[in-house]
């Protein structure tokens, strides 16, 4: 089973990388892009075949390893 984990900086944390990308896009003429925030994205291949177990496992892994709870939050999806 495949789980997807999305890790993003908490909304209150400044994201200089996203801002720099947004500014670069503006200078390329993409004025319609107001803002960019950059996060991380993980695909996990799990041996689990049950959706709930997979979700729980992915969330635990996200919480413990993939995300830094001090500044980041995460979201888990299972397909």
């Amino acid at each position, binding site marked *: 089973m495949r789980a997807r984990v999305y890790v993003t900086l908490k909304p209150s944390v400044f994201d*200089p*990388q996203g801002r*720099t*990308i947004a500014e*670069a896009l503006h*200078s*390329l003429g993409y004025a319609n892009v107001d803002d960019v925030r*950059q996060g991380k994205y993980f695909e996990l291949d799990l041996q689990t075949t049950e959706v709930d177990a997979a979700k729980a496992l992915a969330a635990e892994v996200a919480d413990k390893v993939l995300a830094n709870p001090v500044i980041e939050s995460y979201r888990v999806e299972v397909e």
Partner: protein
Amino acid sequence: MTFGVVVFPGSNCDHDAYHAATQVLGERAELVWHKDTSLHDADVVILPGGFAHGDYLRTGAMARFSPIMPAIKAFADRGGPVLGICNGFQILLESGLLPGAMLRNRELKYRCEHLYIRVEQTDTPFSRRAQAGQVLRIPIGHGEGNYYADADVLSRLESNRQVVFRYCSPSGQVDDAANPNGSVHNVAGICNQRRNVVGMMPHPERACERLLGGTDGLVILQSVVDAVAAGANPADVATTSSTASTSPTR
């Protein structure tokens, strides 16, 4: 002759290249701001190391859109010698002047130290003074120097003899132990098909003075001084092919 050293926002080895060209080689050099659209009278162009735009998206990803890039492309198309060092190499990859891409070092850490590279090809403007198979001790300093190209591109690079430098042991052995970042085929530097554009991860400008622990980088910069003096369009440079083995032992 004049070195044109391009300054991107976030370049930080621009002054080092400038220093090597002017103070060590005694040549002229000009810093070219990335928003310029002309290289003025540069005879050779250096894209220096550093972190253009912070390398926030990908190394070199945003620099390739700089206003100066069309002039660099045109210069390269005319056969002018272009050297991308470290971040400059990454920019050349992103802008398509050289094939392939960079991944993070396989150990995921930035790595700065003196290393050894073997000169594989001597028919480029940046290696013509070296001996084929010569081992150079030159520092690296990068977190994303893990060169990648897919199998087709790689076999074309090898058969066209476009791998100019490979990481090796002090005695010239090309093997995994000598590979600092996981690059395919121990690639430390490559050139384009026309051989006038060279990109390399190690920093020759950091190895030009005895005071700083070695002068092996000089051969690279002096090569291009020779090339320009010879008025050589690199396409015309004697194509005496180098003798170093083209496939590394893995």
